[in-house]
């Protein structure tokens, strides 16, 4: 079965390259509308009896091989398929003139109601009953059996989407890779695949049309899915993966591009436990130290003395490295017990971030004082920045206060488009800027990050967001002042390449992402990074920007 290779494209959510045979997860059967009984009822009864036995046997077989937690459920399900009262009810309905699939559905519905009305554990068994119904009806209609496929060899699992129930018995030894037609980077499928270390591609349009048993290559990094791939293509992709994996183990220490250009790699911290862990991470310091944990859930503000002690402890564990402290980011969404916050209909657009300093000026001054005293003699290179600054006046007000209190480097976070658009003006007073991509995308696309009703609008690859990063980074270059990115976006290795190409000088992320970002950056020169940035900006949406950059970076690793 060697045809021309068919190339499909999705979003890679769990890296790895594999080739295998496709096994499809079939969707539940849909009963044709107005289904009428045809043929002799006794023949239909016989057919249904056989369908029930087949389902019972298959479930019994699966329970023999399932992981321990699933054994009981499958064994009970097999017993349900063999239930004589259920069978009698189905057969009675067929003899009364119902079509066999409808009879199965109705008979199960009666038991389903009873289980649901009891509630608790038994109500949860209603889903098991639905599964049996789907299986029996599929057999009767001549459709493929729904649920996880069973094969002798490990396979590429192909699905429209995976429900949590589908993944309960998912086993990394039998599934080579997962490809879904739907879902996104944060879907259940993506989370499960990552946790099991199974390469996965989601949102791969057209994938479900691929035939069961087809040979399929899955590249969980680039999101490429290829049916009947050529040997050259397989070895090329495996080679690229090997280069990336080698870079992860080969490189450590400060962030560098292939031509030696520097880009600082920092970590985000927000709890004492984070800080303990981050102290040992291979990073050049802290790019975002969230200080809220000192203020939330307590009846009164911590004293300067208490704050100083906490900061000091942290600064000492980063002696010789940089620590960027973000001053308190409170607001109606993160209320403080000791400061009355206005009850606002739109907290995200209200008195939050640096705006709270307008009515709580002493809180900020005390915090800056404590940071300044803790920094002195700690050995750490301590910078401070204000959250959610919108205007040059706010940036200069903050810088003035910080400088007066003995903190030489005071910057602003760029989280609203107004700040990015006027980055040149902010940098007249601010010593540096740091871009918070999560809030910046929320405010750029007017899409609440808490609900994320249209997730693609919050995709950090969205060109409008990238455009604002570019503007900010360019202003930094002109002023010869640092501009960092400290949102989640910085932890995406290929997006890190794009940011480097825009002239961003530091990336701050969760410690777990450091190694992969460092490795990916090490593979390209600054001019290649610039080209990647140009390509991303020339696309119309996040998905195509990600795809274009992914394909370009892959092509650079082909040689």
């Amino acid at each position, binding site marked *: 079965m060697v045809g021309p290779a068919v190339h499909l494209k999705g979003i890679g959510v769990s890296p790895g390259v594999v080739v295998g045979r496709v096994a499809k997860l079939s969707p539940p059967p849909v009963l044709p509308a107005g289904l009428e009984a045809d043929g002799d009822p006794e023949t239909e009864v016989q057919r249904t009896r056989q369908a029930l036995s087949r389902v019972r046997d298959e479930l019994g077989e699966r329970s023999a091989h399932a992981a321990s937690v699933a054994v*009981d*459920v499958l*064994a*009970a399900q*097999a*017993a*349900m398929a*063999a*239930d*004589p*009262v*259920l069978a009698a009810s189905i057969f009675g309905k067929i003899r009364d003139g119902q079509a066999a699939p409808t009879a199965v559905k109705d008979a199960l519905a009666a*038991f389903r109601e*009873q*289980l649901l009305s*009891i509630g608790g*554990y*038994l109500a949860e*068994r209603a889903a098991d*009953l639905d599964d049996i119904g789907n299986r029996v009806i599929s057999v009767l209609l001549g459709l493929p059996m729904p649920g996880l496929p069973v094969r002798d060899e490990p396979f590429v699992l192909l699905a429209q989407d995976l429900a949590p129930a589908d993944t309960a018995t998912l086993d990394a030894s039998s599934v080579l890779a997962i490809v879904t037609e739907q879902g996104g980077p944060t879907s259940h499928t993506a989370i499960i695949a990552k946790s099991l270390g199974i390469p996965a591609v989601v949102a791969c349009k057209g994938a479900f049309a691929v035939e069961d048993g087809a040979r399929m290559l899955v590249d969980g990094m680039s999101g490429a899915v290829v049916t009947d791939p050529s040997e050259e293509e397989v070895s090329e992709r495996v080679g690229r993966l090997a280069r990336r994996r080698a870079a992860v183990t080969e490189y450590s220490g400060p962030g560098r591009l292939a031509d030696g250009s520097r880009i600082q790699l920092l970590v985000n911290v927000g709890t004492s436990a984070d800080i303990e862990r981050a102290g040992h991470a291979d990073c050049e310091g802290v790019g975002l130290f969230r200080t809220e944990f000192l203020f939330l859930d307590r009846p009164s503000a911590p004293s300067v003395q208490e704050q100083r002690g906490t900061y000091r402890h942290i600064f000492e564990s980063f002696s010789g490295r940089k620590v960027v402290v973000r001053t308190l980011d409170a607001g109606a969404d993160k209320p403080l017990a000791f400061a009355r916050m206005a009850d606002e209909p739109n907290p995200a657009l209200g008195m939050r971030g640096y705006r709270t300093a307008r009515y709580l000026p002493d809180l900020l001054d005390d915090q800056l004082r404590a940071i300044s005293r803790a920094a002195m003699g700690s050995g750490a290179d301590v910078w401070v920045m204000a959250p959610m600054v919108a205007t040059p006046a706010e940036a200069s007000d903050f810088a003035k206060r910080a400088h007066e209190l003995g903190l030489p480097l005071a910057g602003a976070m760029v989280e609203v488009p107004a700040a990015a658009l006027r980055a040149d003006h902010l940098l007249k007073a601010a010593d540096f800027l740091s871009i918070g991509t999560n809030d910046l995308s929320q405010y750029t696309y007017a899409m609440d990050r808490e609900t994320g009703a249209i997730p693609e609008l919050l995709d950090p690859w969205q060109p409008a967001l990238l455009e604002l990063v570019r503007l900010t980074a360019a202003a930094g270059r002109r002023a010869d002042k640092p501009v960092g990115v400290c949102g989640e976006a910085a932890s995406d290795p290929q997006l890190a390449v794009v940011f480097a190409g825009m002239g961003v000088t530091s990336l701050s992320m969760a410690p777990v992402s450091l190694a992969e970002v460092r490795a990916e950056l090490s593979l390209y020169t600054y001019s290649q990074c610039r080209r990647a940035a140009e390509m991303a900006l020339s696309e119309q949406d996040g998905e195509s920007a990600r795809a274009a950059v992914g394909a370009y970076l892959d092509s650079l690793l082909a040689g």
Partner: protein
Amino acid sequence: MLEIHAKVGSTVGLHARPAALFAAAAAAAPVPISVCKPGGEPVDARSILSVLTLDARFGDELILSAEGPGAEEALASVVNVLETNHDQAEA
């Protein structure tokens, strides 16, 4: 008609695996066995779905009944399955 009163021995109740084992034991008996809660409607003990709908918890009393030749032995073997803690057997 022979009747035996017995208590559910499985700590998880007459659910999942214990219910499947109970129904299987009843199905293996040479005579039909019914089961009910005191004062409740008797159901076919071979039917796991009917048994589940009894919602019998650990320590609940059930009444099993059967008639005809072999009824006594049949009830004894099913009661044995009912009173065993299959949860513990698993652990």
